[in-house]
């Protein structure tokens, strides 16, 4: 097939078979680096994001947020606020619609809210609200909060209409209070295997609370028409969000309609689902006033109520033989859910449990995970939920284990990798397609090539590290319950409108969908308009733009529709031209037969509409092998990630340039996780909830040299062999950097971020505030 890839790395070689497409391909169909559909508006600044949207007669909301982490609201007096000029309504917490009780559970929790004619008036009115809180003893440490006698933030497993509620049986008698979710699992006999192992290596790791820091802050506009609630906001998982909001507000699911702004904002998980103190507050104020209400988070509230990555504490014990075979792994994790449940604790814990078994052969395995309510700011979805944290712990640990048995960490990993077709140790069937071996080989080759002949001066410590990572595509169940549908309409002018469940969050899904349609039908990608289908459409979709399912599942539905559209179109054309369908070739919007060449619009008299569907019967795992070289300043501990190679199995790169972009973005997030970011709190009060004080990675922190190796394993179940990329590409980044730091300084930072200060004291071999565990 034709392949043009302007600007892509010439070292890329596509090794997988691409003979899956039956139709003659358009020149700019799948497998080529077509231009993003949204690039012009984003570069020119004409894109309208959520916080740019204004609607007529809209009121502006401001929220009075708690400054103490735990208490009971005794009185809230909004009278004076209501009397302010320009204020249309002021609601106390208990007057808000939904499950708002009188309890304050974290700094930033809602006390009251005001709607006014402008934002400044609304904020000024907050100063007029008087309230009285009875403070309760707070709890901030998840491991403490879960024990008997700890202050109660919530009863165990409260029903706040969060998704993924499921019955749990807690078998650990030390886990008593504040349980959000719990998972325990085992196979084999771990105790016996650890007793007989040649080496047993035990270690703890913690990962920090971090924020997405999306550039566009949360902004929604809520309005009611009779009993119908409409919310305009960036949300990736619209179907589920409508259900959750409906349940939370105690109205029918069908009475909630969510639409996204003309240009949705970036998400990275931060915009998958509704937030407790966001959409419901705007909806309540709108209902009260009978007018649209706009609520926007100021930047500091992004940190307080925008939901963070779960802070986690891991304990890993691994048994290995002298020759480097893993015989047992025992893992326990405690995740900090913060003040409110949202169903995400479940995902953290189940990913922590399952992902190691997608990667390694572990004959004896025991896992226990608990997510715990505390009076910290709430945690939620963040790219690579749980798997980012778990992979940091596992891949750091494996590095240590390999060192203990005296093996090269890469060889050690290869020795224990699951092979294609080999059953997972938990009996969940075999790995179908795994490019992991190729990721390792090609990544290693590239890494050696570009780090070759480096001399290091006495002024720097250089270290190199590798880490693997994997994550499933889609919701992970692979049980056929996750579905998506897409509708394609070809108009008589030859253009196509694709209605899909995709939400273009910057990940490039609209471009990918247009490429698939172009490829299947034979039109240029510019002739395809991609739209989000409305809630009222008779089209089905389970989860929207989350869990790396857009290309895989939504793309699968678009491809299904595309093949139908193509065959209907060819039939119509062959009838019109009185020739055999086999003689019709459509390319770039032009119809070619033996006798003539005409455009589609000249032949099509009626528009064609088809609906395609895809079902996730699988949840294919996608793999990455990442390599890092760091330079540590021995005087200050400053870490510079000098070189990075991300070799990632993507199944098939529908748009190689955007795949590269996703990988580079993952490296940025991973560098940030490894060495920059941590939302710190003092008694539940975030200390650095501003972009001045919270460190995010900038281009300066990016590796000087970064190579993305795209590996294509041709996944059987995905469109053209594609599988998920957004999530799986993140987990290996931070541990690769952590392992490189370990290599450079001889000690391991087990609690990222590896700030200069932590690295400095780790080099000095000195414990620092007992917060930086240092290994000799």
């Amino acid at each position, binding site marked *: 097939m034709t392949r043009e890839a302007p600007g892509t790395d010439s070292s890329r070689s596509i090794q997988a078979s691409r003979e899956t497409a039956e139709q003659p391909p358009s020149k700019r169909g799948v497998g080529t680096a077509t231009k993003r559909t949204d690039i012009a508006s984003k570069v020119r600044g004409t894109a309208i994001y959520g916080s740019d949207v204004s609607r007529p007669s809209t009121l502006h909301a401001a929220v009075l947020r708690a400054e103490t982490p735990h208490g009971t609201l005794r009185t809230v007096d909004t009278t004076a606020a209501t009397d302010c000029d320009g204020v249309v309504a002021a609601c106390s917490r208990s007057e808000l619609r939904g499950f708002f009780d009188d309890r304050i559970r974290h700094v930033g929790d809602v006390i009251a809210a005001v709607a006014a004619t402008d934002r400044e008036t609304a*904020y000024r009115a907050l100063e007029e609200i008087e309230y009285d809180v009875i403070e309760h003893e707070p709890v901030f440490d998840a491991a403490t909060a879960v024990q008997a006698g700890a202050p109660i933030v919530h009863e165990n497993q409260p029903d706040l209409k969060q998704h993924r509620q499921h019955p749990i049986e807690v078998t650990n008698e030390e886990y008593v209070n504040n349980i959000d979710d719990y998972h325990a699992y085992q196979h084999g006999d771990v105790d016996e295997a650890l007793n007989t192992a040649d080496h047993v290596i035990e270690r703890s790791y913690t990962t920090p609370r971090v924020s997405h820091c999306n550039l566009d802050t949360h902004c929604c506009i809520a309005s009611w028409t009779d009993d119908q609630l409409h919310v305009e906001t960036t949300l990736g998982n619209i179907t589920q969000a409508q259900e959750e909001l409906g349940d939370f507000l105690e109205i029918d699911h069908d009475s909630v309609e969510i639409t996204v702004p003309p240009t949705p904002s970036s998400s990275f998980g931060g915009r998958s689902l509704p937030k407790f103190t966001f959409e419901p507050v705007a909806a309540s104020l709108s209902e009260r006033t009978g007018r649209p209400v706009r609520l926007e988070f100021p930047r500091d509230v992004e940190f307080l109520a925008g939901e963070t990555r779960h802070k986690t504490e891991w304990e890993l014990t691994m048994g290995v033989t002298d020759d480097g075979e893993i015989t047992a792994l025992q893992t326990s994790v405690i995740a900090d859910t913060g003040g409110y449940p949202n169903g995400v604790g479940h995902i953290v814990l189940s990913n922590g449990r399952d992902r190691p078994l997608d990667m390694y052969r572990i004959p004896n395995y025991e896992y226990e995970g608990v997510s715990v309510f505390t009076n910290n700011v709430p945690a939620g979805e963040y790219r690579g939920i749980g798997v980012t944290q778990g992979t940091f712990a596992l891949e750091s640990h494996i590095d240590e284990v390999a060192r203990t048995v005296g093996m090269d960490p890469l060889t050690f990993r290869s020795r224990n990798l699951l092979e294609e077709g080999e059953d997972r140790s938990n009996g969940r069937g075999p790995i179908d397609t795994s490019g992991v071996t190729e990721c390792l080989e090609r990544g290693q080759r590239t890494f050696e090539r570009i780090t070759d002949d480096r001399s290091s001066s006495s002024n720097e410590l250089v270290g190199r590290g590798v880490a693997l990572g994997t994550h499933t595509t889609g919701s992970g169940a692979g049980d056929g319950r996750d579905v998506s549908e897409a509708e394609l309409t070809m108009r008589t002018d030859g253009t196509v409108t694709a209605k899909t469940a995709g939400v273009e969050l910057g990940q490039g899904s609209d471009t990918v969908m247009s490429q698939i349609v172009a490829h299947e039908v034979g039109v240029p990608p510019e002739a395809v308009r991609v739209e989000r289908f409305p809630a009222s459409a008779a089209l089905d979709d389970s989860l929207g733009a989350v869990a790396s399912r857009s290309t895989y599942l939504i793309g699968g539905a678009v491809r299904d529709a595309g093949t139908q559209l193509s065959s209907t179109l060819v039939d119509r054309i062959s009838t019109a031209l009185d020739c055999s369908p086999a003689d019709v070739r459509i390319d770039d919007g032009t119809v070619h037969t033996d006798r003539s060449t005409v455009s589609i619009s000249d032949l099509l008299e009626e528009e064609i509409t088809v609906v395609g569907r895809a079902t996730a019967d699988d949840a294919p795992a996608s793999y990455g092998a990442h390599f890092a070289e760091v330079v540590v300043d021995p005087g200050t501990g400053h870490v510079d990630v000098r070189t990075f190679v991300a070799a990632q199995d993507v199944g098939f790169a529908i748009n190689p340039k955007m795949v590269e972009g996703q990988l580079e973005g993952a490296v940025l997030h991973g560098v940030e996780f490894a060495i920059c970011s941590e939302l710190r709190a003092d008694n539940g009060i975030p200390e650095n909830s501003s972009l001045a004080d919270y460190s995010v990675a900038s281009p300066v922190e990016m590796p000087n040299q970064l190579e993305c190796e795209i590996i294509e394993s041709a996944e059987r179940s995905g469109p053209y062999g594609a599988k998920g990329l957004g999530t799986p590409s993140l987990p290996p980044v931070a541990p690769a950097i952590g392992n490189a730091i370990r290599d450079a300084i001889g000690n391991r930072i087990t609690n990222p971020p590896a700030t200069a200060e932590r690295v400095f004291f780790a080099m000095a071999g000195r414990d620092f505030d007992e917060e930086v565990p240092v290994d000799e």
Partner: protein
Amino acid sequence: MKAAQFEHHEPSTVDEAVSLLESLDEPTILAGGQSLVPMLRFRLARPETVVDINGIDSLDYLREENGFLTLGALARHADVENSATVADRYGSFADAAPLVADPQIRNRGTVVGSVAQADPKGDWGSVLLAHDGAVVAHGPDGERTIPADDFFLLPYDTTLAEDELATALRVPTPEPREGSAYHKLKRKTGDYAMAGVAARLVFDDDGRIADAGIGMTAVDITNARAKEAEAHLEGERPSPELLEEAGELAAEESNPESDEHGDASYKERMVDVLTQRALADAAERAGVVERRVPQ
């Protein structure tokens, strides 16, 4: 948030500015707005009146004259960053300028404004101290020159009077065998200093240190000199051991506090490291030491 309302005055001469400062009630001076504008926007400052000096063209200069490098009150960080004079002869200035905040701020923020703001985390105060520089101020009684050592009182507090305008800062032009440098450690690009050290060394014909200046950033309640370290250096020939001793003395003289930038004990160690590095660079630039002293 947007700034609260204020009255905006735009004098075009220094005299006009001074008489505004004299007549208005608690006026605030706006130069680059590097610190003032965020404070206005967050409403940490709610001044009634703002005297905007950006229209006083006579303050927009950076030049060497009469034995001094002089920067007018409208010289931006970027002006220093792009100055060939600075690049050739004033190592500490050339080091510090690109480390101030980010390019947008460097295009607006002024060096004199930063010194007058007297944030102990500001970089220029340390450079000024290391160079034995001075601030030039205009008030109702005319011009006076305030030596750097007498300028800083407390965080955000200086010996400038309410009705005085800092119109320039100046440092002596370099001696024949002089070198200077600035080293800064920060959590991330664009951030304030976690610690910073400016060093200036003047050597005699014999290769001994005739004069040493060390200014420290973010490790005391103001930009501060490391006087004992300076005294320890004077009369000596530079050696790694001497610089190590000076680094230790400077660390002892510093008084950092633990904050979101780092733990006090770490900052103190960093004063040691940064002092050694700045001194090593200064010595090298003075042409008396061939190679950089490691670490």
